[in-house]
């Protein structure tokens, strides 16, 4: 009974993304703070792995400067994640667990198929393998992105995304 209700609730959520964000059941791997319209914990939107993997995303095979040979990344589109959090801003600051951070315009999420990769070659990314999530630009779609400017924005071991107005 309860699961059926949850199912209906989830279906409603999927139909209306502006609806309230779920509460994470597993360990939180991503916190979106700042200008978010649908916080689910202390004014921030927090996600566990299953929440992220429930969002629309893509699976892509490509080469990066940090990996050997062709590898497969998969995960939700950044824009979907921001949408789910009700993010409303113009810039993002992405912070890594080791204190590294990069600032980027929100158009990097809206206009191109940037994903928050959670899996590398099908395996869940751990901190040891640049997890729990990594921002992957679509180098396969647009070769012009393949330069140091976007390399610096390709943050891994992401802990938090702050949305700036």
């Amino acid at each position: 009974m309860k699961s059926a209700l949850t199912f209906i609730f989830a279906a409603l959520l999927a139909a209306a993304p502006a609806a309230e964000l779920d509460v994470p059941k597993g360990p939180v791997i991503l916190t979106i703070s700042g200008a978010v319209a649908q916080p689910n914990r202390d004014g921030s939107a927090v996600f566990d792995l299953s929440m992220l993997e429930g969002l629309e995303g893509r699976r892509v095979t490509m080469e990066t400067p940090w990996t050997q040979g062709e590898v497969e990344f998969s995960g939700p589109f950044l824009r979907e994640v921001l949408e789910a959090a009700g993010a409303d801003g113009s810039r993002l600051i992405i912070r890594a667990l080791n204190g590294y951070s990069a600032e980027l315009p929100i158009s990097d999420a809206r206009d191109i198929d940037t994903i928050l990769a959670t899996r590398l070659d099908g395996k869940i990314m751990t901190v040891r393998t640049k997890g729990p999530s990594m921002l992957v630009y679509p180098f396969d779609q647009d070769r012009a992105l393949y330069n140091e400017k976007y390399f610096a924005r390709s943050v891994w071991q992401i802990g938090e995304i702050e949305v700036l107005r």
Partner: protein
Amino acid sequence: MTRVRRTADIMRKAGSTTLILQILSAVLLLVLIMLFVDISRQFRFLQDGIRENAVWSVYQLDREARTLDDSLADLRRQSPSKVLIDELSLRYDILHSRVQVVKESKFSSYFTEDPKILRLLGEIETTVAAIQPAFDRYAEGTIPNAAELEKLDLALAGLVKLTEDLLVQTNMQLSAERADARATILDLEKTSAIMLALLMVSVVFLVVTLRRQLKSVRKAGLELEGMAQRLTEAYEAADAGNRAKSQFMATMGHEIRTPLNAILGMSELLEFSELPEDALSSVKTIRSSGEALLEVINEILDYSKIEHGKLELEERAVDIRALSETTVSIIRGRADDHGNSIVLDIPYSLDALYVRTDPTRLRQVLLNLLSNAAKFTTRGTVTLRLREFYRHGKLMLRFEVEDTGIGIDEAGLAKLFKPFSQVDASISRKYGGTGLGLTICKQIVEKLGGELGMSSTVGVGSIFWFELAVVAVGKDEVRRQAGGQDKAPLPRLRILLVEDNRVNQLVATRFLARLGQEVVVARDGAEAVSIAREQPFDTILMDMQMPVMDGIEATRRIIAEGGACSTTPIIAMTANASDDDRRRCIEAGMAGFESKPITMERLRNVIQSIAQVPATGHDDDEPDDIGLPEPIIIDDVDLPALSIEGLDEARHSELVDALGEDVFRELVESFFDDAASLIKDLHVALANHDPERIDRVLHTIKGAAVNVGLNDIADKAHALRRVRPSPADVDRLSDEIETLKFKLVA
């Protein structure tokens, strides 16, 4: 000549410079392509050179090693708690990932190929891997003891030393790499600079050469222009000389012909008078020599006309048989002199019996060929043979003049059609002639669109032939054109011509002379009366409107005075043939009247009727019994198309036919001279309000204009007679006359 060569040199040099320029351009293009290839190669190299920053990664690795060391120190200072152990685990995980990053990232060769770096990296990896089991246990919740932590601290101290060494080493290698890169860029820059310099040199050379080439081309252009100018001047000078020569020939021909005609005329008259036998033979010699001279002059004039392309052809319907017969009959006399018989061989039936061509010129050619044949044949036969045939569907006429004369050899044939050449010098001594005849014939036949040729055998004879493409026409057309030209010869009458207008005088005199009449001219009525008193005439042609005394008055006086001409038929010539005029003429005692303009045909009719009716006394009772034909009044009936606006072509050709182009020209000129003074008279008459005089002057203008075929002017003048003309009307008429004068005379 040297100038021409120099110009050619300049052009040639310009050509070789162009070749050099072309080669240069090709080289330049090659250099440019090379430069581009090099630049794009360098660019591709840069593109490939997109690498992860090794120093940054190594720095991160070093930093994470120290952070882990710090976390471990924190843990050892405090009692181990879950939070601190988790923190320691996370730090290890991050360090682990950093090792992987440094190991797996694409770095430049300075990093991946340096053995010292590789060694340090290997050691770091080994160290991190060695401590991994301990951290894996902590992550699963095992609380580490102090001894373990101390051992870990020791290992981490070694790791930090290694990462620091790696960082220093990497930075050093990077500096070296940077210096190398700078050197490469410097090299590229140097190459570019050299190429740029080459390019600039090429461009400068190009510009300089182009300038030089332009200069030489301009110079050549100027030379050519100058040359063209000089050529034009030379051509103009030559042309002017040529024209002067033609003018001279025409003038001289004319000047010679006039006295020669007088000599011929006088000698002919002398022949008729009673002379002693030897004097008569001298006179005959004078006449025949004169005729020969006239022939020579005509030939030279013809030749000069042909030479200057001024030979003008007319086109009329011609009866070929009649033309051949008359031509043969002309030559018969000369043939008889040499004891030759003449045969005219024309098929009984000819398609081309009546054709459209120039009869005068055709007759000229036939006459020339026939007279040549007769000249060079003695006691033989001269045959004029006519044949028609079709070539390419076109009707052709072939004329052959065959003789049984001396013939011409091969060498002679070559010279035959050259101007002023005869077969050999002895010919000209023996037979005379200019040697122009055949040349003229050939030119005329060619101008008529035909072909002239000959074949000959020495001692047997020659055949001269020509073929013309002709267009057959109906018999009626020939009749209409020919008019009464071939009627019976007219008797020679003595005629008094009373006419005040000079042009009309000239035309009438010429026509009458052509008809073989003897003419005395009186300029007005009074003069006519005094001449008629003294001399007898067969007829008097009387103009109606004249100054001093008009035609009616003069007629009355001549009859009344009972002088030599009191019974001579007087014929009125008038441009206005109204019933009223007719009545006045008859009342005055005239025998009839002819409307103006006077034509050959009308004059012939008049002379014929006068000759048939012997001059009897005038009888006032039966003035209409005189056997004159009813005057035919042709008023603007069926005027043929005008080739020059305002000029009646039929009248023009009649006058030219009777008098020749030169005389016609004179006529037209004198008409315009007269017209100028007549217009002046008209203005005076207008100023004096003298309607009678105005009418008379307009009448004179009309008469004179019609006479030379200027129908438009005649019509205008006649129209003005009906209204009272204003000075503006007269000016308009004057303008019209001036315009025509410009067209016809200038």
